[in-house]
């Protein structure tokens, strides 16, 4: 029989080390689950749950956002994107602003919607803004393969796809935030499995637990991290066993690397991370909007007061940004962390605005 939630909490109190413990979650859905379910309040004061770079929209660099906006502004195309991207502010405006001014911007549920549109409308140029980590990259890979099979000449992709493990290594090397354990993302790991995180316990002696999204999953994952700390046996543990296999989904990994190859990528807050991006392989270049639709040079201009970069590294909490809930709100967002439904500022604003830090 599995343990109940209360049993986990009382066990956590028993094994809780007498020092601050920083546990970083690297998945926007975990961020939301923690805030929505009030999990921060369940744990002893010394256990500090901090958000990392787990929201794909939030970590997309301002340069990429401006680049997308320039393409949309300068070319007549049907744009397909996930809803979270619409209101992310660029240096001057957002996709929502361009939509209001008449650009054809469609919110899609699946990348397949973009592909099907392109197949049914061969005379219309169609651009899919591909955003997301390893969970979403294989989907883009599948539609690009279909685009190639169908010999499409009107379908293009702007890839901002990124992979998670190199970003974790950057955070660990940076040492501005002491991380005592990682709650690893559930559905990224459904694709990549547990082995890509092995360097974390091996090189940095830090526990990793791949967690599910229910309150019970997350509480038991925090318990496992603390147990690994007290036992001094850091390892990569899969709590979300009902979905995550050690080797992930090999077919999905195969699909990703048949279409994409690793590239350097700019992350908001973290800067350029070698090998953390996914760009189109030579054989898929004809679908790459970055080369097919040139734009003039992009000079991204960050809002001087926005702390999204520091928040994504766990250096600041959302309510420590001076714009939080004042100049920056979900209605009038200044940074992406307040826009995305998985952003930590949006989570704090919605559920923890009046609570403790």
């Amino acid at each position, binding site marked *: 029989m599995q343990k109940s939630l209360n049993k986990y909490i009382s066990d956590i109190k028993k094994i809780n080390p007498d020092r601050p413990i920083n546990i970083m979650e690297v998945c926007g859905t975990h961020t939301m689950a923690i805030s929505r379910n009030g999990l921060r309040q369940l744990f002893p004061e010394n256990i500090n749950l901090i958000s990392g770079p787990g929201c794909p929209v939030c970590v997309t660099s301002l340069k990429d956002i401006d680049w997308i906006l320039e393409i949309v502004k300068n070319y007549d195309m049907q744009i397909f994107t996930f809803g979270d991207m619409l209101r992310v502010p660029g240096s001057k405006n957002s996709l929502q602003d361009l939509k209001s001014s008449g650009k054809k911007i469609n919110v899609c549920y699946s990348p397949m919607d973009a592909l099907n549109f392109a197949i049914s409308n061969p005379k219309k140029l169609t651009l899919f803004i591909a955003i997301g980590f390893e969970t979403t990259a294989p989907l883009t890979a599948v539609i690009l393969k279909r685009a190639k099979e169908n010999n499409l000449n009107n379908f293009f992709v702007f890839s901002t796809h990124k992979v998670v493990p190199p970003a974790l290594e950057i955070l660990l090397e940076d040492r501005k935030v002491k991380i005592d354990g990682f709650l690893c993302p559930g559905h990224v790991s459904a694709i990549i499995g547990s082995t890509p995180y092995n360097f974390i316990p091996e090189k940095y002696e830090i526990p990793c637990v791949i967690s599910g999204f*229910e309150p019970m999953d997350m509480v038991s994952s925090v318990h496992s991290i603390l147990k690994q700390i007290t036992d001094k046996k850091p390892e990569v543990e899969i709590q979300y066993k009902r*979905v995550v296999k050690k080797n992930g989904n090999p077919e999905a990994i195969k699909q990703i690397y048949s279409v994409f190859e690793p590239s350097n990528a700019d992350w908001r807050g973290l800067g350029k991370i070698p090998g953390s991006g996914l760009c189109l392989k030579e054989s898929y270049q004809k679908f790459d909007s970055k080369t097919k639709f040139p734009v003039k040079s992009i000079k991204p201009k960050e809002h001087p007061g926005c702390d999204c970069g520091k928040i994504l590294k766990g250096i600041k909490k959302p309510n420590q940004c001076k714009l939080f809930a004042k100049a920056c709100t979900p209605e009038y967002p200044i940074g992406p962390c307040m826009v995305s439904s998985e952003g930590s500022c949006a989570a704090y604003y919605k559920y923890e605005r009046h609570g403790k830090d």
Partner: protein
Amino acid sequence: MCLAIPAKIIEITKNTAKVESLGVSKDVDISLLPEAKVGDFVIVHAGFAIQVIDEEEALKTHEYWKEYLDAEKPK
């Protein structure tokens, strides 16, 4: 974005499966799960099935959820 929904496969036609989740049925792409079969529970992300859910592990989770919900019932 990573909110993925569990669903049961009802029928398969080539790369597409009809799945049912909480009484709603829809078509999803199963290219990423070549071994998926009718009756499997899968996690669906943005129109694609991305992983089969281990039934035994899923049932274990149900067990502790039942216990949790029972404990939360008003006395």
